């Protein structure tokens, strides 16, 4: 259950983005690899809790799932997986070289245009 911590880190990054642009975040996209062991439902719940009462409240968090891409060190087969429990699809070995799967990144943010912000204030 590290989703709450992760949500706090995302909130810090997005608050900075909002401040930098003098705007408000409506939505954001985060890239998440399975090796980070984030449970999407829990991250959404944590996002609601962490942003409650802050300028980020009500912003939508889109999760972009990045697969593990792995090469088997036994048979050379390439395997793709959306879980951290990745095994070679051909021979079943766990001896894999991972090329991706650790992603944990804020990719982009959708901001309110400045007119909308000034309309509200």
């Amino acid at each position, binding site marked *: *259950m*590290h989703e709450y*911590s*992760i949500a706090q*880190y*995302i909130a*810090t*990054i*997005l608050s900075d*983005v909002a401040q930098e*642009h003098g*705007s408000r975040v409506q939505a*954001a996209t*985060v890239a998440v690899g399975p*090796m*980070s*062991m984030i449970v999407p439902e829990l991250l959404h719940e944590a996002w609601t809790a962490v942003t409650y009462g802050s300028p980020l409240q009500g912003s939508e968090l889109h999760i972009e799932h990045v697969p593990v891409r792995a090469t088997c060190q036994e048979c050379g087969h390439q395997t793709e997986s959306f879980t*951290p*429990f*990745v095994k070679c699809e051909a021979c079943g*070995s*766990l*001896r894999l070289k*991972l090329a991706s799967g650790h992603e*944990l*990144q*804020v*990719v*982009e*943010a*959708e*901001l*309110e*245009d400045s007119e909308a912000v000034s309309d509200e204030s």
Partner: protein
Amino acid sequence: MRVEVMKGILGSNDAAAEGNRKFWDQHGILALDFMGSPGSGKTSIFERAVAELIKRGSSLKVIEGDIASDNDARRIEQAGAEAFQINTGGACHLHAAMVSRAMQQLDLDGVQIILIENVGNLVCPTAFLLGAHFRTVVASVPEGDDKPEKYPVAFREADGIILNKIDLLPYLPFDTGRFWDLCDQLNSDAPQFAISCTTGEGIDTLCDFIERHLAEIAG
């Protein structure tokens, strides 16, 4: 308006971890971070290792991470080393900044080794680097021989793997071959240690490993 952000979510933690590493390197200190389930015997390993390393003439301090209580820090102090207790108050892992703050509280004059016990958990601490030179995962015989398969990320990313409570092997259906085979498959680079804190078996080998790496760091 869409803006590209492209920022690592854990970037600030990674930066704090790098700061910790730099600090330890500047002071010639070897730092080891131990992860494992609650009850895998991390504190018992520390008690044994602290006593042995002090006997060998090393100077070390311990950082204990727990959700609550200072029981572990008290156990370590009885074993002969100063321990700083971090209570996360609910968080299931240590952050690099918590360790930085702990380092400011400890008198590090002459200290060569810092042992860090992470919060008992095999999922959450894996993503949060602390900057330690070695991250060791601790499993124990009663937890079952399939532990590496159930927590592949922790085992894949460890710099060392400890199997604790090997004195219980005669009493439990634990297939040591299967356990180490899974570890080999997930992480053939990580040195493996079989330990019993009850009999003391394997503690010497672990301390030899720690001393060898300390010598490397000290140049």
